C-alpha cells in the first residue's frame, strides 16, 4: 500500500459511512460490558435482524472502545445521516429498542439522551482520545477512515528524521508516563546516537493503582499508538519497536496483536512501510505482574526476558538501552499524541496547555465522584473544574477531602489547593506528581495515614529487592505506619518515619524507591493533625482505624494483653 492507496481506502470508507441513515456506536469497553453492554448488543442485533430488507443496510453498529463516563454505562451514541448526534446513558435491552424504534419512526424517544452541553464532554479537549468511541478497534479501516497512518505517510514522504524530531521538540510534548521529560529531547538523543541498531519501546505497563488511561487507549484505538511508534522509529532511525503491555490487560494485548497483524497486512508496518524505504516491525511483549517494570530500565530488562530489575542511570536508555543499544522509550499516551502533532503541526499542539506543560492530559477520574471515567483536559485545567464540573462533584452529599494523583509515587492534594492548575510543575510544588494520570477523589471517610499505609504496602510488595533502602526501607516505613494506624505508635515514631522517608527518597536506585515515601511525606504535610490524632489522642478522625493496640511503653499496665503461654491445669 502506498499513500494514495491509503487515501483512497479512507475516502471509500468515509463515503460508505456518510451513506448510512443511522450509525450506532455502542461502548464495548470493560466497564460498559460489565454493566450489560453485551446484552444490549444482543438486543440490537435481534432488532436489526427483524428489520425489513430496505432499512437494514442503512444501519451500522460499531462496538467501540471507551467513550468516557464509565459510571454511566452502557453508553450508546446515535449519529443520524444529517450528522446530529445523541448519547444515551445506562441503556438496557428494553430502552435500546425504544431508542432505535424512535429513530426509525422519526419520533422523539421517550428516553432522554445526555444533554448536549453535558459538562463531562464540553469541558474536555480530545487529542489522544479523539477516536475513542468512534471506531471499532478491531477494524483497521475504521481507524483509517479517521485518518490513521496519514501522519505516518506524510512524515515518510515529506519530512526528514531531523524535521520530525524538531517538530516534536517545538510542540513541547512531555512524557505522559509521569516524569514529564521533554519527548523531543529524548528523540533527538536517540536520533543522534551512533549504533548499528536502535529500538523504540512503548511503555504500556500502567501499574499505578487507580489509573487506566493507557489500557483504554490501547484497547480503544491501538492503531494510534502503533502509528506514533512508527513515526518515532523513522525519526530516531529504529527498525524495531516493542510495545510492553501489562499482564493484567489481556484485552489490550489481544487488540494490539490484531492491530499489528492488520497493519502489517496493509503494508503500514513491516518492511517498506507505505512503499518507502523505511522498515518497522513491532513486537508485543506482555508483562507478568510487576509494578517495577513500569520503570524504564526495569521494563527493558523484562523485555529481554529477565527479572525486571532496574539498572542505575546514567547511562540512559537513549545511550544504552535494550541489549546495550540506543533505545527510545515513551509512554503509550505520549505516542498517542504524536500523530495529531504531525497532522496539525507543533504550534497547534503548543497552543493547548500552559507555558511549560503543553497539550492535553488524560486522567482516570474515579473514587468519590459522580461522573467517574476517562477524561482528557488541557494542561492547566484546575482541579476544581475536573472534580466539580467534569466529575459533577461528590455523590451522596460527601465533602471533598483530597484528590490523590500519581498513585504510589504521588500524594493527596487537599481542598485548599483545589484551584491549582493541573500541570507538571504545580503538582510537584504541592508534593504530589502528575504521574500517569490516576486521579482519585476522596471524601471525609478516607483516613490519610491509612491511605499512606495502603500505598506503602503496595510499594513494599512491588519493590524488586535490588537496593537496600527500597527493599528494607519500605518494610520499615510500613511497620511504622502500621503502628500509627493500630494505636501503638509513640511520638518518636513519627520522627523516625520522616527521617526514613528522606533516606529512601534520596538513596534508592530507581524511581519506585525514590518516590515510595511521597504519599507519606505529602499527607504529613497537609494532614499532620490526623497523624497526631492517631498517636496522641488515640483517635482516627475518619473513623477507619481500629487503634486497638497498646504502645510498648504502656505495656506493663496492660500485661494481660501480652502473649504468654497459658495452659489449663
Amino acid at each position: 500500500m502506498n499513500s494514495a492507496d491509503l487515501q483512497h481506502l479512507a475516502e471509500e470508507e468515509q463515503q460508505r459511512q456518510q451513506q448510512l441513515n443511522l450509525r450506532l456506536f455502542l461502548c464495548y469497553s470493560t466497564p460498559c460490558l460489565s454493566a450489560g453492554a453485551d446484552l444490549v448488543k444482543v438486543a440490537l442485533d435481534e432488532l436489526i435482524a427483524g428489520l425489513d430488507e430496505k432499512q437494514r443496510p442503512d444501519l451500522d453498529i460499531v462496538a467501540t472502545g471507551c467513550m468516557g463516563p464509565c459510571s454511566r454505562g452502557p453508553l450508546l451514541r446515535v449519529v443520524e445521516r444529517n450528522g446530529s448526534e445523541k448519547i444515551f446513558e445506562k441503556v438496557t435491552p428494553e430502552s435500546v429498542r425504544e431508542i432505535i424504534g424512535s429513530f426509525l419512526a422519526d419520533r422523539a424517544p421517550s428516553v432522554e439522551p445526555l444533554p448536549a452541553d453535558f459538562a463531562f464532554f464540553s469541558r474536555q479537549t480530545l487529542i489522544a482520545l479523539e477516536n475513542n468511541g468512534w471506531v471499532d478497534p478491531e477494524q483497521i479501516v475504521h481507524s483509517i477512515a479517521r485518518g490513521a497512518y496519514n501522519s505516518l505517510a506524510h512524515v515518510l514522504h515529506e519530512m526528514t528524521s531531523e524535521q520530525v524530531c524538531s517538530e516534536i521538540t517545538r510542540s513541547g510534548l512531555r512524557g505522559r508516563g509521569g516524569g514529564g521529560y521533554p519527548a523531543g529531547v529524548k528523540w533527538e538523543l536517540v536520533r543522534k546516537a551512533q549504533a548499528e541498531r536502535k529500538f523504540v519501546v512503548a511503555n504500556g505497563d500502567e501499574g499505578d493503582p487507580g489509573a487506566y488511561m493507557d489500557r483504554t487507549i490501547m484497547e480503544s484505538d491501538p492503531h494510534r499508538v502503533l502509528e506514533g511508534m512508527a513515526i518515532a522509529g523513522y525519526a530516531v532511525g529504529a527498525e524495531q519497536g516493542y510495545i510492553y503491555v501489562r499482564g493484567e490487560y489481556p484485552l489490550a494485548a489481544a487488540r494490539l496483536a490484531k492491530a499489528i497483524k492488520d497493519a502489517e497486512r496493509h503494508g503500514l508496518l513491516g518492511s517498506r512501510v507505505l512503499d518507502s524505504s523505511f522498515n518497522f516491525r513491532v513486537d508485543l511483549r506482555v508483562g507478568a505482574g510487576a509494578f517495577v517494570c513500569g520503570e524504564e530500565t526495569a521494563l527493558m530488562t523484562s523485555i529481554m526476558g529477565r527479572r525486571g530489575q532496574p539498572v542505575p542511570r546514567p547511562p540512559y536508555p537513549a545511550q544504552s538501552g535494550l541489549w546495550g543499544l540506543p533505545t527510545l522509550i515513551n509512554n503509550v499516551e505520549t505516542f498517542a499524541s504524536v500523530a495529531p502533532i504531525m497532522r496539525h503541526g507543533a504550534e497547534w499542539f503548543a497552543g493547548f496547555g500552559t507555558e511549560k506543560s503543553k497539550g492535553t492530559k488524560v486522567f482516570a477520574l474515579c473514587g468519590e465522584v459522580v461522573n467517574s471515567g476517562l477524561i482528557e483536559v488541557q494542561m492547566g485545567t484546575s482541579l476544581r473544574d475536573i472534580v466539580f464540573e467534569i466529575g459533577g462533584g461528590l455523590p451522596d452529599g460527601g465533602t471533598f477531602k483530597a484528590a490523590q494523583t500519581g498513585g504510589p509515587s504521588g500524594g493527596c492534594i487537599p481542598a485548599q489547593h483545589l484551584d491549582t492548575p493541573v500541570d507538571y510543575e504545580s503538582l510537584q510544588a504541592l508534593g504530589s506528581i502528575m504521574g500517569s494520570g490516576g486521579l482519585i477523589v476522596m471524601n471525609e471517610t478516607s483516613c490519610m495515614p491509612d491511605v499512606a499505609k495502603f500505598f506503602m504496602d503496595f510499594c513494599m510488595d512491588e519493590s524488586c529487592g535490588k537496593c537496600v533502602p527500597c527493599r528494607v526501607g519500605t518494610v520499615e516505613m510500613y511497620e511504622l505506619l502500621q503502628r500509627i494506624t493500630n494505636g501503638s505508635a509513640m511520638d518518636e515514631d513519627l520522627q523516625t518515619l520522616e527521617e526514613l522517608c528522606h533516606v529512601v527518597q534520596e538513596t534508592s536506585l530507581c524511581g519506585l524507591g525514590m518516590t515510595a515515601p511521597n504519599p507519606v511525606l505529602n499527607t504529613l504535610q497537609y494532614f499532620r493533625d490526623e497523624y497526631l490524632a492517631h498517636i496522641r489522642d488515640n483517635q482516627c478522625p475518619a473513623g477507619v482505624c481500629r487503634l486497638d493496640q497498646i504502645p510498648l511503653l504502656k505495656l506493663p499496665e496492660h500485661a494481660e494483653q501480652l502473649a504468654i503461654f497459658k495452659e489449663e491445669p
Partner: protein
Amino acid sequence: MTKTPPNPPVTNEKSPHELKLQLLDKTLKKSQYQQDALIEVLHTAQETFGHLDEDILDYVSIQLKLPPSWVYGVATFYNFFSLEPQGDHVCVVCMGTACYVKGAGDIVARIEQEFDMKAGTTTTDNRLTLISARCLGNCSLAPMLTLDGSVLGKQTPDSTVAAVKEKISSSSVVGEETS
C-alpha cells in the same frame, strides 16, 4: 525426580500431558528458542498447565538453554506465575486505590473469614483460590473483582460471598453428578 520431556511417543495416542507439551513446543518454536522469550514461554506454560511445576521449569530451562536458577528466578519474580496449582475457582479482588477507598479491604477480609483462608492461598478443599490484585484498571466499577475471569463491579462483602458460594455450589452439583 522424573525429567520431562518424555521419550517420543510410541503410539499415536498422546497423553494430555504430551498434548500440552506440544502447545508449549509451538510457542518455543515460534520464538525461535530465543532466550529473551522466556516470559512469553512461561505465560504459555502457565496457561496450558495451570501452574508451573518443577518439571515444566526444568523443561523450559533445557529448551531455552538457560540455567535452571535463572528460570526459577524469573518465574518467581512476577506475580502472574504460580508455582502452586490453583483452586477450582479463582476470585481476584482488585485492591487498587479506587477500590480500596470504596471498601475492597472489607471484601477480602470477609472472604478470608467466610472460607477460612488467607489472600494469596487456596482453601484446603481446593475449591477456591483468593488473590488480592493490584489495580485491574476498572476503577469506575470500584470495588470490583473477577470471579473465574468474569468481571463483577460495585461489590459489597455480602454480594461477593454470595457470588462465590453460588459458583462453588453450582460446580459441585456437576461434580457429584459425574462422579
